[in-house]
C-alpha cells in the first residue's frame, strides 16, 4: 500500500484503466464470460410414452407448463402485432424425438386465407442452427449464426379450401394444365403451396429477409382450436441432418424462441408477438412425479425468498421510521 500511495493519482488511474481494458480484451479473446444466464428455462423431459401429435395426449397433462411472455415484433411494415401476450409451453422427448406443445388464448379461429385481407393464426419455434458458435439474433439470426424455424399455420392445418366456398358465383372456364408451371408458387418450391407436406414448414434464415424453406422437411405438427385456445404440437427427430438445422441431444441445452400470429389482428410475416430466447433443457431424466425431494427444494427456495424479502421489507420500514435529515 505504501508503494501504491507514492504513485501519482493520475498515473494510478490510467494504469488501473489499462489493466481493466487488457483483462477485458483477454476475456473476449478467450471467450470466457464470467456471467451466467438467468433466463427462463423450458425443460424437455423424457416421456414414458409416445406423445404423438395429439395436443390432448395424456402425457402432456403430467407435464408442467411455463408461461413465456411475448411482445410485439414487426420487422417489416405494417408495424404492429403483439396481441397475444403470453404462451404456455411444454416439452418432452421420446425415442430421440423432440416434442414441443404450445398453447395460447385467441378469441378467433383464423384458419382460412381465401381473401387477400385474411391472415392465418400461426405459431413458430426458433432454434440456433447446428453450426453456430454464438447465440444468433432472435430476429432471423445473423450472417455468421443462422437459425432454424418451425412454423405451424392454422390454414395449412385446415387444408386447401375450395374458392367456391367463399366466391359462390365465380366461374372458371378451364385450366389449361395441372403442371407446376401453371401453379407458380408450387413451381418455385413454396412449401405453403404443397399442402400434402403438412401444416408445419421447416425454415432456415441467416438474417432478416433471408428466410426460406429448409432442404429437409421433417418437422411434423398438429393444432387444435378449442374453447378460445389454440394447442399445437411440434415434433422432430433429434438429428438435424444439415448444418443449417437445429440438432438436439439429451443432457444438453440450447436456445428456443416462440412467435405467435393472430390472423384476425392482421398479423403476418414480421407482424407477430415474440418471446426472447429461452433456454431449452433437453433433460435426460424422466417426467418428475413431484417427488418429495423436488418439493423440498421448492420449499427451501420459497422459504429463503420469503424470509429474505420479509426481512428486507421490515428493515426498510424500520429505516423509514428513523429520523431522516432534511433536504
Amino acid at each position: 500500500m505504501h508503494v501504491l500511495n507514492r504513485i501519482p493519482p493520475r498515473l494510478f488511474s490510467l494504469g488501473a484503466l489499462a489493466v481493466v481494458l487488457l483483462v477485458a480484451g483477454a476475456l473476449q479473446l478467450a471467450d470466457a464470460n464470467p456471467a451466467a444466464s438467468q433466463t427462463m428455462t423450458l425443460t424437455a423431459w423424457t416421456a414414458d410414452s409416445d406423445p404423438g401429435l395429439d395436443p390432448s395426449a395424456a402425457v402432456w397433462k403430467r407435464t408442467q407448463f411455463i408461461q413465456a411472455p411475448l411482445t410485439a415484433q414487426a420487422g417489416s411494415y405494417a408495424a404492429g402485432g403483439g396481441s397475444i401476450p403470453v404462451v404456455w409451453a411444454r416439452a418432452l422427448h421420446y425415442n430421440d424425438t423432440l416434442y414441443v406443445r404450445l398453447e395460447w388464448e385467441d378469441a378467433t379461429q383464423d384458419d382460412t386465407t381465401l381473401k387477400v385481407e385474411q391472415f392465418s393464426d400461426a405459431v413458430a419455434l426458433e432454434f440456433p442452427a447446428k453450426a453456430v458458435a454464438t447465440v444468433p439474433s432472435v430476429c432471423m439470426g445473423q450472417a455468421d449464426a443462422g437459425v432454424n424455424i418451425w412454423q405451424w399455420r392454422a390454414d395449412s392445418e385446415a387444408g386447401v379450401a375450395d374458392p367456391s366456398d367463399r366466391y359462390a358465383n365465380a366461374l372458371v372456364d378451364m385450366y389449361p394444365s395441372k403442371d407446376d408451371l401453371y401453379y407458380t408458387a408450387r413451381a418455385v418450391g413454396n412449401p405453403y403451396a404443397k399442402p400434402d407436406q403438412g401444416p408445419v414448414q421447416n425454415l432456415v434464415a441467416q438474417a432478416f429477409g433471408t428466410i426460406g424453406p429448409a432442404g429437409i422437411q421433417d418437422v411434423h405438427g398438429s393444432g387444435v382450436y378449442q374453447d378460445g385456445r389454440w394447442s399445437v404440437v411440434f415434433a422432430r427427430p433429434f438429428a438435424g441432418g444439415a448444418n443449417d438445422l437445429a440438432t438436439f441431444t439429451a443432457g444438453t441445452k440450447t436456445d428456443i424462441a416462440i412467435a405467435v400470429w393472430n390472423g384476425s389482428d392482421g398479423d403476418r410475416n414480421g407482424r407477430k408477438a415474440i418471446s426472447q430466447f429461452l433456454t431449452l433443457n433437453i433433460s435426460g431424466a424422466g417426467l418428475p412425479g413431484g417427488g418429495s425431494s423436488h418439493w423440498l427444494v421448492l420449499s427451501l427456495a420459497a422459504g429463503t425468498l420469503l424470509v429474505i424479502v420479509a426481512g428486507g421489507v421490515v428493515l426498510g420500514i424500520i429505516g423509514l421510521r428513523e429520523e431522516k435529515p432534511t433536504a
Partner: protein
Amino acid sequence: MIARDVVRSRPAVAPPVVQLEPVAVALAVASVIELMVLRAFTRTAVHIPALSALQRPYEFISTFGRYSYFVAVVLLLVAFPVAVVALWCRGDFAARMAAAALLLFSFVAVAARSRAVDILVLDALTIGAVVLAAAAVASRGQWRASLVVAAFAAAFALQGTSSFLQDAASQGLASFETRWLLWAAEWLALLFAAAAPLGFAVRPSRWGLVLSIAVAAFTFAVLLANGSTFKVLLLWNEGLAGTLPSAGYAVAAGSLTAAVFGLLQHRRALPAAGLVLLISGGIGLHSTYQTGLVLAGLAVICLAAREPALAAHAKVK
C-alpha cells in the same frame, strides 16, 4: 456533494467512497455503451436493408459492443469488492446489510456459473439480495428516495418471482399463472422511472427540462412510428413487455433523463451512476451481469444517501 460532505465531516470513512466513485462512474459509462451498442444496436442492425454490403462496419461495431460488455464485466468485478469495503466501513447496520447483499449475490454469481446450486435457490437468493440492498437504501435515504427505490425493488422482485415460479414449473414441480406479476412489475417500473426526479430531489435546470422533454417526445415518436422494435429492446434489455400505453414509457424515459441530468448538473456523480446502473440492469432475472449492475447501482445509491449522523451534526450546528 454528498461525497464531499462526508469527506469533510468523517475523514475515517471517506476514502472508500472516494475510491468507489471513479469505479462506479466508469462502470456506468461502460454499461451504457454496452447497452447501446451490444444490446440495442447489434440486435436491431439486422433489420438494415442490404446489411451484407455493410458487413465489415457491422462486424467492427459488433466486436466493439462485445468488448464494451467485457469491460463492464471487469469493472463490475472491481466495483463489488470496493463497494463491499466502502459499505462495511460505514459501520451502520443498513450499510452492512447492503454489503451482505452484495456478498450474497457474489455467491449466487459464482454458483450460477458453476451450476453447483439448484436454479430455484439461485433465483430466490438473487431476488433476496436485491430486496436486501434496496431495503438498505430505504433505511439510509430520505423517504422520497426510499419509495422510488422500493418501487424499483418491488418491480424487480415481482418479475423475478415470475421467473422463479416458471423455473419451478420447468423443474416439473407445479405450474403457476404469473401474468399478474408481470403486469404489476410493469406498472411499478414505470412508477419508479416517472418518480425518479422527485425521489432523488432533482430540480431540473432549463436545459435539463428541454433535454428530458426531447427524450420523452423522441420515445413517444419512436413508439408511434415503429413501437415493435422499441418494445422488443425493452423486453430484452429492461424486462418490460411494453404492454402499457406508449405515453407512460415516454414519460418514464423523460423523467429518468431529467433525474440523471439533474444529478450530474449538481455534481452528484455517485447517485447519478447508481441510477444509470439500475437502468442498465433492468428488472427481473436476465443474467448475473445485469443483476450485478442492479446491485452495484443500489450499493452506490446506498453509499450516496445522507447519513443520520451527518444530519445530527448539522442540527447541532
